[in-house]
Structures are given as C-alpha cells and as structure tokens.
C-alpha cells in the first residue's frame, strides 16, 4: 500500500536556525498538508496545499513558515528561524478530494 514518507525522523536544531522538513506524498494524491503536534497535545493544522499553491493556513503558519513542492514529488516545510516553541512532531499528510488523510510517520523537531 502506498505510503507518505517523511525525512528525517528526528531533527535537532539550534534556535534561530533554518530547518527544512521533507515529505513525499502518495503519488496520485492532490492535497497536501502539514500538521504539528506538541508532545501530548492536540494535532494542529498548519497548512494545506493544492494545485501548487496554499489553499488554507492557520494562525500558526506565520511568515516564518513556508511550503514548497519543488519537483512534483517532494513537499517541504521550511521554518526560517526556529524558536524553542517550534519543538513538536510535524506530520505531513496527503489525500484525494474525498479520501481520508494519509499521514507520514512524522518528523520530531527539537529546537535547543
């Protein structure tokens, strides 16, 4: 069964540094998402992406965040200048128009 893959599984970075989280969605999916989950807390929506542009974003997704689909297969989330409070599990997900979200295994981001 096709899967959403995320790399790396764990990223440690220093405060103020840029970080790029990578995802390869399922190939026939058209909608791509980033969610984050601070340890033990709810799953928070960051952004959705469709037809090569952002379709929705949350208040969390400020100017420090950006997404890109650079080559038709990868879907990346960039945090320009990380803060301590960005430490969380980041999930990439993809879907078709009417399917459930298919999640990757997540990238655990630790900002020190």
């Amino acid at each position: 069964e096709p899967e959403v893959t995320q790399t790396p599984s764990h990223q440690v970075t220093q405060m103020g540094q840029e970080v790029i989280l990578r995802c390869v969605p399922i190939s026939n999916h058209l909608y791509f998402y980033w969610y984050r989950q601070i340890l033990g807390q709810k799953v928070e929506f960051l952004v959705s992406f469709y037809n090569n542009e952002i379709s929705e974003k949350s208040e969390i997704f400020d100017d420090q965040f950006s997404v890109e689909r650079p080559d038709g297969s990868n879907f990346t989330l960039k945090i320009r200048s990380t803060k301590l409070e960005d430490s969380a599990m980041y999930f990439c997900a993809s879907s078709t128009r009417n399917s459930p979200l298919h999640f990757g295994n997540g990238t655990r981001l630790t900002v020190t």
Partner: protein
Amino acid sequence: AQTVTQSQPEMSVQEAETVTLSCTYDTSESDYYLFWYKQPPSRQMILVIRQEAYKQQNATENRFSVNFQKAAKSFSLKISDSQLGDAAMYFCAYRPRSTGNQFYFGTGTSLTVIP
C-alpha cells in the same frame, strides 16, 4: 465555526471488554466525512474508521464500529473485545465535503487497556 469535541481526555477498559469513545462536532454543512484516527506510542497516525455523512448505516471495521447520530452531531467509536494493542490516543476528525479541504481534529482521548 467548525469544531470537534472529545470530552473524555482519558478512558480505560479491561482487556476483552467494550469501550465507547465520544465525539461531537459543530458544523452547518450537510455533507461531510468523519474519521477516527489512532495514535499509538510510536506517534504514527493510523486511520481506524471513516463515515460519510450521507450514509445512514454506521461504519464497521472488524472490532471497531461507530454510532453516527447526524441530528445530534455525534460520532462515537466503539471498540469491542479490547486488546492490549488498542492502547493509544484516539482522535476524532471531521472534513467538510464542499468547502475547502481542511480536516478538523478533536483533542484526543487516551485509551488504556488493562490486562
């Protein structure tokens, strides 16, 4: 506003028994999807079951079934014959069919299975 509420932060069940996890949602949409996701300690998000709002029949997947009450905007998950591997966080999620493509998640219920 479209919100999903899980009023039980923690639940426990004896192995082999049945447990029901509650979920309510608020929407003005008439057509939408509802989902239950399981998140075990590995943190992976796993789809458990889905329900389409236009279907009156409650969805069932092996030991997992839902009680979908559209008028009450309620979508509970029943786990029968609970197993140790069912221990996880369970998230209820809602997706409107017509407007946008965002999924809305509840705050989760942590399920403990007692041997």
